[in-house]
């Protein structure tokens, strides 16, 4: 996928570095992208290879082996590198499997809200007029609803499970997608290639999908990262309030919530998943910021 802004290769001198080389230098010269990218990639690998990495089954409990501190603590044990939780489950294994759940929530909630938000935003931006007004109105309504409260209420009514949490978050977080895709679509509505496509008789859907969407993808990728981070944090908050992912699933948010009881005397129980969550969200945000800097050079100082 090309992320380079429009100047076409032909207009440059032959001696100049190729666009992909420029991109490469940009990417690797950009601290945020490198750090963010490797964090996200690392967590992704961790999640994918969970069965290989995790030393134990994350669900198997042994309550005679509970609350063993991690290896660096005085009473740590090599059997459990990050110790065990309140039910004697291996904390490292739960953390590794938890990566799957947190990533799953982030990715799917963000994708679902992206689908909704982009559909609305592009429609509004492309057609304008009353459709635009109606969709703007929808966005205002969505923004006026307090997210955490509505999510809690809906989850409470429909029963909390991983799928429900993802769907509820997906249904709530589309506003930024809509706003951004609407603005981007409006800018491009009269662009040459859109007009050209319309002129050769392409259907509206086709114009939107094959001409419009690819060209507004960059800002949307940035939004996608933001919303992914947002969804992960929100799930943590929901779990903290007892209405997120339900035990025994090890989401990182739930692990913090469960560890809260021990935070005064065994702070690592809440520190470890807290740091994991912080790192992942930070990585996603850095990646998003980096993509924005790369693709929208006018925003750089």
């Amino acid at each position, binding site marked *: 996928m090309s992320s380079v802004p429009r100047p076409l290769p032909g207009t440059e001198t032959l001696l100049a570095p190729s666009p992909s080389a420029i991109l490469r230098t940009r990417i690797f010269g950009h601290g945020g992208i490198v750090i963010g990218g490797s964090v996200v990639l690392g967590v992704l690998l961790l999640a994918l290879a969970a069965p290989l990495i995790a030393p134990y089954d994350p669900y198997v409990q042994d309550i005679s082996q509970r609350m063993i501190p991690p290896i660096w603590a005085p009473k740590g044990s090599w059997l459990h590198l990050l110790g065990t939780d309140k039910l004697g489950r291996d904390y490292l294994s739960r953390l590794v499997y938890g990566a799957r759940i947190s990533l799953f929530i982030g990715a799917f909630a963000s994708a679902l809200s992206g689908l909704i938000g982009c559909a609305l935003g592009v429609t509004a931006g492309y057609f304008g007029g009353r459709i635009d007004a109606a969709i703007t*109105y929808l966005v205002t309504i969505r923004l006026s609803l307090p997210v955490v*409260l509505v999510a809690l209420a809906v989850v409470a009514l429909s029963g909390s499970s991983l799928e429900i949490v993802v769907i509820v978050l997906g249904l709530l977080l589309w506003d930024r997608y809509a706003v951004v895709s609407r603005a981007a679509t409006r800018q491009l509505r009269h662009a040459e290639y859109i007009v050209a496509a319309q002129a050769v008789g392409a259907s509206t859907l086709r114009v939107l999908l094959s001409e419009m969407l690819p060209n507004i993808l960059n800002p949307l990728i940035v939004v996608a990262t933001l919303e992914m981070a947002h969804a992960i944090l929100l799930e943590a*908050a929901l779990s903290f309030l007892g209405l997120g992912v339900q035990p025994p699933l090890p989401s990182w948010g739930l692990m913090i919530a469960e560890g809260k009881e021990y935070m005064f005397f065994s702070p690592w129980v809440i520190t470890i998943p807290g740091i994991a969550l912080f790192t992942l969200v930070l990585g996603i*945000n850095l990646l998003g910021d980096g993509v924005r800097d790369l693709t929208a050079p006018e925003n750089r100082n």
Partner: protein
Amino acid sequence: MIAFLLRRLGLALAVAFTVSIFAFALVRLSGDLATTIAGPEATSAQIEQIRIEYGLDRPLWQQFDDWLWHAARFDFGRSFFFREQVANLIAGRLPVTLTLGGLALAFALALALPLGIVAAIRPNSWIDRLALVLSVAGQAMPTFWFGLVLMLVFGVRLRWLPVSGTGTWRHFVLPAVALGYYATPAIMRLTRTGMLDVLGSDYIRTARAKGLRWHTVLLKHALRNAMVPVVALVAVQLGFMLGGSIVIEAVFAMHGLGYLAWESIQRNDFPVVQAIVLILAVFYIGLIFLADLLNAWLDPRLRTP
């Protein structure tokens, strides 16, 4: 200007109306009201009687109409759990949430505005970088986690501030910091970009060229113009904070609106939840309406969109 006002007001009312439909639906979805009101040991005859008494046998739109008119007069019916009117419950909790939201916003502004301005005046300086680190870190931390850490450090270890409750202004410091910090990055970034844009613009250069003093230029011209988008954002953020205070209120055991909502959700007490959703939404709608007015006043160009 009047037309602009009316248009905005109309939009605000329309949004509020739609939200009220949503809030109404929330309670209807929570189960059969007559059964809940009648209590677990009621016979089906008693339930039917209550259904008629409360008008729950009428068509939904009539019930909605009825409910809406009551809600408009702050009559939200009775709590299923407490033997009390929902409006009374909420009146007791609202000041806590408003104070918390206000203080959190004050904290966010006190941190974000100076940092954002300085970061814009001296891009790439250490302050700019510090601002960047703060904003990136702020967005990556779950609020409840940050709240717990603040409680642990300043409440339990250092004992500078009380741990929970709402007794004095000191009780509000930690929660306001935890809540406000999350809003800081957005305000700071917008202040910074706004200032950068304005500072790079022609009229600032002209003003400087005319030999006006730097801080006059900065405060009188640059800041005023850079603030236009920030005002809108601040209103939005305050709305979010009131809605998002639920987590912080839970951490610090503050008996505010969000906390009441959370408890009520767990108790299946949906008349309370419904009222709180509606009130928070109306607050938000009111805030963006105010922001629109403020913006129009700050930047006359916006009056004719």
